[in-house]
């Protein structure tokens, strides 16, 4: 069985490593082959960018050589796919090489597109790359007072970021002795402070204690840099001195260019994780690349990748899939003041987040290091 994995992020790497372990004897005997095609030789721990923005981590701490994370049996090439020829069961890379497959795994991820909102790219800062996180850190260091406006586009990666960035920036500004000169103004697209109702209730209570103003039903329409204000689809206008954005996201451009899904999100079966439509029986979609109505988050990619690897191994060994993905997601929520909580849920079971505490924050800090074991498929 020839398995080709497109994308060397969290989903692709966990899938490939998990499968390589399960198919160890088949790989050695030449009965199976795993190939990974990536756009980069680096693997980035993206949740760490929040800490870069706050000056708590540096970008080099978040980066490893992808080859060093992979099981040795996996053939790894820095040669991104340019053309998906699903009807002929092969992909073509930038170098022109053709890779035939029996199973294709697409895990190309997502990217922020602040340019989709007029004025947002030019007038805001965010933390969706190391470079952007450093810029945000510079702006926070240079801030001398005024209004910090947090604004949120849809869809976006990491659903907890709007709250986390607000709470942790509040700490940062307080520690700089500027809290009396600063107003935090939080906006959110729906009628409460977060998509999860009980998280929203908790967050609004915290905001009230901290003096953070909030405006709900606020969907980004445009940013007027000359006037220093943001306008919403709902007709509101809010001024800012520092605009911190959670920009809208799209899937990778190669997905749109190959017409695999609008805005780069591939229609995916929520249980089997196979692509919907023609040729989907040979194509699995993982992580942010799916169009599933669940969080675009690292844990989603992780849990999906485990299910997909178990199923792929079972197909090789028994000719049938092992189990369905149940929609499991686990998200840490940094709550400021070195406290954190988490939300865990599935398609069937809603989350029941607990009050934030120091132990969960310590666990999150530990996980930032444990990630490198996790992505190898060791935990």
């Amino acid at each position, binding site marked *: 069985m020839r398995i080709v994995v497109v994308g060397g992020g969290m989903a692709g790497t966990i899938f490939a490593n998990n499968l390589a372990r399960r198919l160890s004897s088949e790989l050695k005997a030449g009965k199976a082959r795993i190939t990974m095609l990536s756009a980069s030789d680096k693997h980035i721990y993206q949740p760490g960018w929040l800490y870069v923005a706050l000056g708590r981590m540096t970008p080099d701490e978040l980066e490893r050589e992808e080859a060093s994370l992979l099981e040795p049996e996996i053939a790894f090439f820095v040669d991104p796919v340019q053309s998906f020829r699903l009807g002929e069961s092969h992909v073509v890379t930038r170098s022109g090489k053709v890779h035939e497959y029996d199973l294709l795994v697409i895990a190309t991820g997502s990217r922020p597109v602040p340019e989709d909102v007029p004025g947002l790219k030019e007038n805001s800062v965010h933390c969706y790359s190391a470079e952007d996180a450093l810029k945000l850190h510079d702006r926070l260091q240079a801030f001398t007072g005024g209004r910090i406006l947090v604004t949120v586009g849809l*869809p976006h990666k990491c659903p907890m970021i709007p709250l986390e960035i607000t709470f942790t920036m509040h700490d940062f500004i307080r520690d700089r002795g500027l809290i009396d000169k600063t107003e935090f103004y939080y906006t959110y697209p*729906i009628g409460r402070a977060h998509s999860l109702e009980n998280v929203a209730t908790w967050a609004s209570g915290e905001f009230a204690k901290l003096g953070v103003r909030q405006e709900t039903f606020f969907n980004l329409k445009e940013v007027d840099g000359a006037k220093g204000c943001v306008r919403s689809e709902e007709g509101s206008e809010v001024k800012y001195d520092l605009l911190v954005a959670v920009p809208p996201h799209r899937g990778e451009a190669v997905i749109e260019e190959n017409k695999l899904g609008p*805005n780069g999100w591939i229609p995916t079966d929520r249980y089997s994780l196979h692509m919907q439509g023609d040729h989907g029986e040979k194509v699995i979609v993982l992580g942010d690349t799916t169009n599933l109505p*669940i969080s675009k988050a690292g844990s989603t990619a992780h849990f999906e990748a485990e299910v997909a690897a178990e199923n792929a191994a079972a197909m090789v060994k028994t000719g049938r899939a092992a189990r369905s993905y149940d929609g499991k997601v686990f998200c840490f929520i940094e709550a400021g003041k070195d406290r954190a909580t988490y939300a865990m849920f599935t398609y069937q079971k809603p989350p029941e987040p607990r009050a934030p505490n120091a132990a969960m924050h310590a666990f999150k800090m530990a996980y930032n290091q444990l990630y490198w074991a996790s992505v190898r498929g060791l935990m």
Partner: protein
Amino acid sequence: MIGHRVVDARGSFCPGPLMELIAAMKQVAVGDTLELLSSDEGSARDVPEWVQKVGHVMERSERDDARVWHLFVRKAK
């Protein structure tokens, strides 16, 4: 040509049905209708509230035998 698209947000707690609808609304043309499928009780309340605030048109809503809401929203601007 007027389009109709289904947004299947059953079982979505985060980002949730309304967030899925708002994101999908950006991808369709004025005049198109989105049919949002939601198993969330709150959708029958919060979707019409947002639609009214932003100025789109709530065409109708109904609940099927599986207790799934079907909310039909037309993009008006």
